[in-house]
């Protein structure tokens, strides 16, 4: 009887835990894929063997995605499709999935997000977040808090009561930070006018957008946070004819340095005064002032 066999089996040996192994604190792992730095930070429970195996699986999945989607690799599925050597139907199933997401993104953003904008198919704007979100599931079973950073986008989980604090890059000073968000679970993605891969073109004007210098979106799904962040910048207006799905929040910085913030996002600001300071330089003396609840 299989059941009794399992019960009768000796308990598996525990992972050896050397005295110097931290049982709490944050461990970071870094890997370059798709020309971007990906990093995994894990804090809390430390199952050494399981943790390193999960991280290795993430890197493997990301490399697999790169082999399929890289426009820099002549033998990638996407390059072969571009040359007419391969049909989407015969390509890796991921290609059709990503293209379906791209189409949904185009519809939900009124065309602001369009992977076909330059005439050639380049789903690079989706692939990073798509692949990162998919790979991150390897971390779900570890039982600790973790985040996966994907070249400026971050997917976060906190099973403890402690949120992660995510710094938001300053658009005029990218080595400094505009503000920070306290995020327990969800994703934060930021786009600027010159987003990686292809320069953003406003479908409305056919030119580089000039309204926003940066858009940050928080939401439950890294893929859609990333799509919306790009769409905000590409929309080239602070009042586009589309709205984000429920649960998504935005922090927009205009070209003139004005900061616009959805109410839900405002509630997540770890340092609300820094946003006020960016918007109203003269309020510098009032930086300790309480920001009224939205």
């Amino acid at each position, binding site marked *: 009887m299989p059941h009794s066999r399992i019960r009768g089996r000796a308990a598996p040996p525990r992972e050896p835990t050397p005295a110097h192994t931290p049982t709490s604190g944050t461990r970071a792992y870094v890997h370059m894929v798709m020309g971007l730095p990906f990093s995994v930070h894990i804090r809390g429970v430390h199952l050494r063997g399981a943790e390193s195996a999960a991280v290795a699986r993430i890197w493997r999945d990301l490399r697999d995605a790169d082999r399929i989607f890289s426009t820099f690799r002549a033998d990638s599925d996407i390059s072969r499709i571009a040359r007419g050597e391969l049909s989407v139907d015969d390509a890796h199933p991921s290609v059709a999935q990503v293209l379906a997401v791209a189409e949904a993104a185009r519809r939900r953003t009124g065309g602001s997000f369009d992977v076909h904008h330059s005439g050639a198919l380049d789903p690079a704007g989706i692939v990073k977040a798509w692949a990162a979100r998919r790979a991150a599931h390897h971390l779900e079973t570890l039982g600790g808090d973790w985040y996966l950073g994907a070249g*400026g986008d971050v997917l976060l989980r906190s099973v403890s009561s402690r949120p992660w604090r995510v710094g938001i890059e300053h658009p005029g000073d990218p*080595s400094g930070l505009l503000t920070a968000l306290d995020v327990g679970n969800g994703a934060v993605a930021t786009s*600027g006018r010159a987003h990686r891969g292809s320069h953003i073109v406003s479908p409305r004007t056919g030119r580089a957008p000039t309204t926003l210098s940066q858009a940050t979106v928080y939401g439950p799904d890294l893929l859609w946070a990333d799509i919306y962040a790009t769409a905000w910048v590409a929309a080239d207006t602070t009042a586009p004819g589309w709205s984000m799905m429920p649960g998504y929040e935005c922090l927009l910085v205009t070209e003139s340095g004005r900061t616009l913030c959805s109410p839900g996002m405002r509630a997540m600001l770890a340092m609300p005064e820094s946003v006020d300071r960016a918007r109203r330089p003269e309020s510098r003396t009032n930086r300790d002032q309480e920001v009224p609840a939205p």
Partner: protein
Amino acid sequence: MKRILAAFAGTVAALVLLFSYRTSLGDAVATLPGSAAHVASGAQSGAAPTTAGTEPPPRAGTPAPSASATVVNGATEQTPYGPLQVQVTLAGGRITQVTVLQHPDAARRSQEINAFALPQLRSETLSAQSAGIDAVSGATYTTEGYQASLQSALDAVHHAA
């Protein structure tokens, strides 16, 4: 140009792989892609003897508090405007100083950017870091160098933990 960038990305990837290599015992290698990282105790000349002298001896049974300064260099990141690298000084788990080791100044465009960006760097970064940032979200590509270096400093801090 693309080929040069690709080659550089490959070099960075190799460096990151090299430095994130874990030994058979599974110990994290506390080194950061870049250069002579992790200079402990006395990164700022002159302050070192004072720091060492006033530091209370660690009590037995408790982990030694990291009151000494640690200097970490971020990875040199290639941006379309040139190489970029920041150095972060940590004391007691907090970032106390940020120095730009390399910044792109070759192109006219980057001078425009940096003329605005660099004077603000320290205070902005310090005010953000003092709140205990765990991660950074930013627009990639033109700003990738900055972002990656700040994130890689965070990565390095926890590699060393």
